[in-house]
């Protein structure tokens, strides 16, 4: 019984103007956007590749360990799935200093070679955004007259004279409309993937295709949600024109107004607050202790001259410096020290063992202070930046647009968690570098600051690599939002069938 009903509905839907319009517009928009985004992605990828090369050369210019620790940068690769949902991928910095001096976090990354910052005033677009706006509109247009239209025309009465269960009629309508809506969705995504595949610089792995599958699944849940909203409106109204008007205003509210209003009312982050300053003071205290230990060490020295060079002289000059860096806004506070010599005058040579001793003392202390302050800073950053962002995201998720956005970001790995993965990897890499330095006993070695006897072999340094987390993790992160979308779907469907069963024809 269900099959003939579906067939009837399908024919009804397929032969309409709205269906052809939906297919045409979605294809047009998705294809243009994908072409623009691919060009943009290729530009970003090229920059990434040149950056890696620049960082490598920048590091290799130095032949001692100490200055290299201020030059060891890692670059964040652009995510190919950011075409689908850009999320934070373009917004967060992509140049991270890995150094014993401090533990890097998302807030310490720089934006490498951003050529025209004015371009930020233009908003950018991604494929999910098109679906958010256009497909939801089409879902409502397909749904608004599904029940009320048939009632007006009297065909509903006709259908109900047959021995058909009302639930079946509803199910048939739902299935056939979803099939129709899937056509533009799948076709446009297919074209987008074909465009992606023809681009030489983008290579998608099998896992990426599964992630795209996840994005499609979320899109379907989102579409179905809007279809059901339309159906609900259609089942409670008496006239088609009323249903249409209501559907359009509901769409305007859910898609245009609600997400923007949530953020307008959400209190902005306050980094100058008490929380921030107390954490910053704590961090400063840690460094005061560190500094007094350093001063103590220096007070007992017998060698004249100032740290970190102790006035060693060299015929070819030297590079040196030390001091504190602070950024109250991101709660960054650390001590840095750089010293590098090519050679020495003979008069400076007796000082060398002492300087070695000093830096052998300083290095581990510097690392300890960095680790200790990170414990405080991590907590504070979590409270000041991450929590408001997560709360905002949760409020946003109460609208279908927000839930859909969150789910697709999780699949694409461009959401906050996906980006944090990268910074976790950078922190792990820092640990590996520190372990390497300890292993080589680098801090107390002559090679830390002097290249007169031998040179640092940077090739033995551990290499940085970052793999995006596997799909199960993506799925795990997408699940809450997806589940929420599906829950509303189910709830709406039950409500609609109850109303429809009870309604008089």
């Amino acid at each position, binding site marked *: 019984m269900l099959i003939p009903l579906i067939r009837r509905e399908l024919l009804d839907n397929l032969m309409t103007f709205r269906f052809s319009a939906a297919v045409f517009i979605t294809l047009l928009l998705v294809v243009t956007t994908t072409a623009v985004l691919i060009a943009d992605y290729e530009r970003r990828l090229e920059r990434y590749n040149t950056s890696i090369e620049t960082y490598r050369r920048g590091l290799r210019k130095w032949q001692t360990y100490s200055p290299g620790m201020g030059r060891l940068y890692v670059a964040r690769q652009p995510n190919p799935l950011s075409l689908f949902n850009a999320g934070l991928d373009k917004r967060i910095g992509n140049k991270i200093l890995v150094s014993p001096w401090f533990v890097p976090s998302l807030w310490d990354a720089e934006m490498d070679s951003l050529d*025209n910052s004015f371009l930020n005033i233009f908003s950018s677009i991604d494929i999910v955004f098109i679906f958010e706006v256009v497909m939801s509109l089409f879902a409502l247009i397909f749904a608004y007259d599904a029940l009320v239209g048939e009632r007006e025309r009297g065909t509903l009465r006709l259908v109900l004279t047959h021995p058909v269960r009302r639930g079946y009629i509803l199910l048939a309508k739902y299935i056939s409309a979803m099939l129709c809506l899937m056509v533009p969705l799948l076709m446009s995504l297919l074209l987008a993937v074909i465009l992606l595949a023809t681009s030489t610089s983008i290579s998608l792995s099998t896992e990426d295709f599964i992630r795209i599958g996840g994005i499609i699944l979320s899109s379907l849940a989102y579409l179905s949600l809007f279809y059901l909203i339309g159906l609900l409106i259609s089942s409670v109204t008496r006239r088609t024109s009323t249903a249409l008007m209501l559907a359009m205003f509901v769409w305007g509210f859910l898609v245009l107004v609600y997400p923007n209003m949530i953020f307008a009312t959400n209190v902005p982050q306050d980094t100058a607050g008490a929380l921030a300053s107390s954490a910053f003071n704590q961090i400063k205290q840690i460094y005061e202790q560190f500094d007094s230990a350093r001063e103590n060490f220096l007070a007992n020295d017998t060698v004249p001259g100032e740290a970190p060079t102790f006035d060693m002289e060299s015929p070819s000059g030297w590079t040196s410096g030390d001091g504190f860096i602070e950024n109250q806004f991101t709660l960054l506070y650390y001590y840095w020290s750089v010293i590098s010599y090519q050679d020495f005058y003979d008069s400076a040579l007796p000082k060398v063992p002492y300087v070695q001793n000093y830096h052998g003392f300083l290095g581990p202390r510097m690392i300890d202070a960095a680790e200790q302050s990170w414990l405080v800073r991590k907590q504070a950053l979590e409270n000041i930046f991450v929590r408001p962002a997560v709360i905002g995201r949760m409020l946003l998720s109460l609208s279908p647009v927000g839930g859909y956005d969150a789910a697709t970001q999780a699949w694409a790995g461009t959401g906050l968690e996906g980006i944090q993965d990268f910074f976790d990897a950078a922190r792990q890499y820092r640990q590996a570098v520190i372990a390497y330095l300890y292993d080589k006993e680098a801090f107390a070695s002559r090679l830390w600051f002097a290249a007169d006897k031998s040179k640092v072999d940077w090739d033995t340094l551990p290499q940085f690599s970052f793999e995006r987390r596997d799909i199960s993790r993506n799925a795990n992160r997408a699940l809450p939002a997806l589940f929420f979308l599906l829950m509303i779907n189910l709830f709406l469907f039950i409500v609609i069938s109850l109303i429809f069963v009870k309604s008089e024809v």
Partner: protein
Amino acid sequence: MIWHIAKRELYDNLNSLRFALATILLLGLMLNNAIVHLREHPVRVQKYLISITAARNALMARANSLYELAQKGPGKLYKKPSSLHFCAEGGDTFLSRTVEAKHGFWENGNLKSFWRMTYPAAMPNLTNIRPDVTKVDWAFIIGSVLSLIALLFTFDSVAGERERGTLRLMLSNSIPRYTVLTGKFLGALVSLSIPFGLAVLVNLLVFSMSSAIDISIDAWGRLGIIFFVAILYTCLFLALGLLVSARAQQSAVSLVILLLTWGTFVVFMPNLLPSIASGFSFPMSTDELQVRDDDINDKLWEEYFHQIGASKLGDMQAGSKYVTKDAAAQQWLIEERLNQQINQVQGARSITRISPAVILQYLIESFSGTGFERHLQFLENARRYAREYRKFVVDTDRGDSASLHLIGVRGAMSQNPVLPESIPIFEDTLSLTRDFNDAAIDFLLLMLFLMVLLFGAYLAFLRVEV
């Protein structure tokens, strides 16, 4: 006769569901806008005042030495926040609030690097992990929401009447068709102006009741212009609605076409076109800037190095030349890059003017004193001030007969302390005449769109078969 038809339309609309929904939606949005502005604006003004006081104090602290003033420059200059920020946010978070006089770090004996004006980028996104949304300002409410409502008010005005058969009835009377059309247009306009005007009044009422926000006479005038532009923009969409409604056979088809047109022009074009348009030109990159910067340094240093050693006065003259030349060349390089960047943005902005929603956005931005044009005005003010400041240093030095008049060498400049009151102070101003010039093109474009659409609607309605 027009008024009869307009009145009939108006009564039809006033009783309808869409009128009620539109009123609620617009009121809600405008209230939201007002509350947010009330919360944020005093903080913004406070921040500005603290910053300029600090900058002024830092400048005055250098007053005892003309050399210090000449070497370090005027310090940070701040952009004055607009009191009409609630009308258009205009990407202000992405435009820097300051320009800064900075000097290089090199130091050579008694010579030091001189200041040049630098234009730091605002990078609010670098640490911002909150989801990205549009601000609910007037530009958004009018540009996106009001235009959508305008379409919802007109999509069935002809097609719907034809479906119901009332069109035939009306046209059977001896009324010219253009009268019918004008009546419909005016009716829709008035019935849309009521909820919009109400929402605007509530919004402004909140501001005028609050003591924290002060809207000057000038600003009220600007608000009036913005309201007028908003009505013009609404007319554009009403005309579009009438045009499509007259051509479409069914009101449902008319609505689908209108929504798609709306989506393309209001949502997608403003987002998609800038990325395409900004790909046409490539300004100087940071790396290139660095390379050219180093080149200038090397060249001038060599020149200087060859000139010194003859006499003490000759050395000082060469030093003065070196320092001023270096600062001027660096300044020129910075300005060149800035101009390339501005040209890229201007190119992208002119292409996006295909969309009326963007034109409206630019118009509201120029009248509320926010956005990119306003930023350019700020940069222009800062440049003018920089010239004034340089002239002040030279003039003060000339006024001292004991000085050798060699700017850039500490010993060869006037040693007298400078009167703190005589130092020019930067004040950022907004000029209305310039805004009118900027806005003229946008205004004409909007008018052009409106004329074309009105004419189109007229022709389409003339040919309607009943």
